[in-house]
């Protein structure tokens, strides 16, 4: 027991300390649950993560306010299957709870399938799916361990997307692989070639590839990815993949330069052209 007279009346700024007993006893057990559980090192990283996130202009554009209505979470297909909900994220953001945002980024943010239903329906017009994308972007930028782990199985897809601009090919749409589409997958797979032929773009009228990037297009595409910093951010989470993509890029660029040079000198034969049409 302490003597009342000996209690020093110097109170910290934190409004919780207006209740003097708080300074004496510290947080109650039930409060502890809500306080962050991060280690000293993680807390520092979490704060840094939040600060750079919050200084991104998109963050303040996408995050507007929240009625706590739950329309986003109840519309969310991912929330149906995982302990995840966009309202939870928006609430942490509205309160600036950086430890929770950090935890959310590590554990939950990857559950979203980026369907944008939440953004479309939010009565406060929050760009919720955009905020999720932003969290992921910063997770990659910061090279968070969770981002490394979650993206590891997607190396092949990353490689095809970043080098050819294709993720899935139309002939991959089969009833077995797209069971969740129900009868529609069967319908689509049966008539896929007809559907594709109806697209008024030559390069897309095939089913073995979503669209065929010519050499020049592929080089342009990768240049854009590099200039936009997409490839650079890969460096933090998968150095090998980064090196591989850069190698491919350098090789293609060089090949393109050679062809261009020959063309300008008038030395180019038809046979030397790559299989795709080249827009010189």
């Amino acid at each position, binding site marked *: 027991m302490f003597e009342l007279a000996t209690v020093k009346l110097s109170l910290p700024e934190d409004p919780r300390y207006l209740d003097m007993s708080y300074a004496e006893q510290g947080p109650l057990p039930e409060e502890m649950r809500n306080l962050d559980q991060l280690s000293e090192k993680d807390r520092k990283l979490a704060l840094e993560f939040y600060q750079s996130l919050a200084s991104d202009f998109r963050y303040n554009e996408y995050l507007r306010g929240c*009625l*706590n*209505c*739950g*329309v*986003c*979470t*109840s*519309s969310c297909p991912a*929330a*149906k299957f995982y*302990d*995840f*909900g966009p*309202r*939870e994220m928006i609430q942490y953001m509205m309160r600036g709870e950086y430890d929770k945002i950090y935890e959310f980024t590590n554990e939950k943010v990857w559950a979203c399938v980026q369907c944008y239903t939440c953004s*479309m*329906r*939010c*009565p*406060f*017009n929050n760009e919720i799916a955009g905020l999720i994308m932003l969290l992921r972007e910063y997770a990659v930028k910061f090279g968070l361990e969770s981002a490394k782990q979650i993206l590891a199985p997607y190396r092949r897809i990353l490689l095809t997307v970043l080098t050819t601009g294709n993720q899935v090919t139309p002939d991959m749409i089969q009833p077995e692989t797209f069971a969740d589409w129900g009868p529609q997958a069967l319908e689509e797979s049966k008539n896929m070639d007809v559907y594709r032929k109806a697209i008024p773009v030559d390069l897309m009228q095939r089913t073995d590839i979503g669209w065929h990037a010519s050499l020049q297009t592929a080089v342009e595409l990768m240049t854009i990815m590099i200039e936009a910093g997409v490839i650079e951010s890969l460096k933090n989470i998968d150095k090998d993949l980064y090196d591989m993509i850069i190698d491919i890029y350098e090789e293609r660029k060089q090949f393109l330069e050679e062809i261009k040079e020959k063309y300008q000198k008038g030395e180019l034969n038809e046979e030397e052209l790559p299989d795709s049409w080249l827009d010189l």
Partner: protein
Amino acid sequence: MEKKVLVIGAGPAGLSATRELVNMDVDVILVEREACLGGTPKKLNYSLLFPELRPASEVIDPLIKVAKESPRVKKYVNSIIDSVKESEDGFEVSIKDKEQKVSTERVSAIIAASGFEHFDSRRKYEYGYGLIPNIYQISDIERMLSENKLVTTRGVPPKRVAILLCVGSRDATVGNTYCSRVCCAVSIKQAMEIKERVPDAIVHIYYMDIRTYGLMEDKLYWRSQLEHRVGYIRGRISEFMRGPNDTVIIKGEDTMNLNRALVVPYDMVILANGMELGLGSAQVAKVLGLRLEEHGFIKPLDPDRLPVVSQRKGVFLAGALTGPKTMSDSITEGQAAAMKAYEYVTKGIWEYEEIKVTAH
């Protein structure tokens, strides 16, 4: 006195203004778009009024009676204002009826009281109103209650009812970011009426906030729980699906429990659709050359000091065309607008000069 005042709209506000003007021996030209007097409460056949749960007709019928019987009131029903021209001592108004017949009246002042329209819930397409059976709006339920025909499509009284608040209000996706003020109270009142008629029914109200402001809190929000065991679930429903046997399945989040999704069937779902200016009042605003405020309602000269005075000299405003109102608010405004119009036609008082309206 030979001065006349034109009142546009024969709802609670217009009728209340009419009655005051008649009491002060002013002649009234009353123009109503619909065939009958009484406005939206009559047209949609409102049942009981909140918070006292008295029949709507008890309030509106005496007002209608004055308008119908007073020799000072000249009525044009099924008619709209076609054009308004300024003349030397007031306005020259042409009134067009359904048969396109045009009549002209000369008046000294105008009271616009053309009211609101209920939000059309079909615009919230994910709710499936008009497509899925057994989804109604509070404006439909009023008629079902007063005609004593509260049944589902299967012809039986509903056993499980969900009421969803804030449909078409507080929602940027439909462009209405304001609160419609009355729908909480109306919904709770309907919940109590339903429980009174079908005592074993389960009634759940899905809400974000309950706005039974002022003296209505205990008479509605508390009483509905104390006496009727109406359930309140905090969360806004995101979509409805058609369930078996004409049930409606709701999808929502119980926001009191993190990430807890609700997928629950009901026999009947009621959407608490809000208020909008509506096409009728928009046409009136256009003809009178009145400006709208940011929510799409008509902008008074000074919303704090002169809420019933319009931007145009000689034109006054009453009721829900300046924003969502209860019936008693509208009646009060009708009385206030009548007073202002009387001052104007008898003494020429117009406060425009002394009011500096600050632009936002």
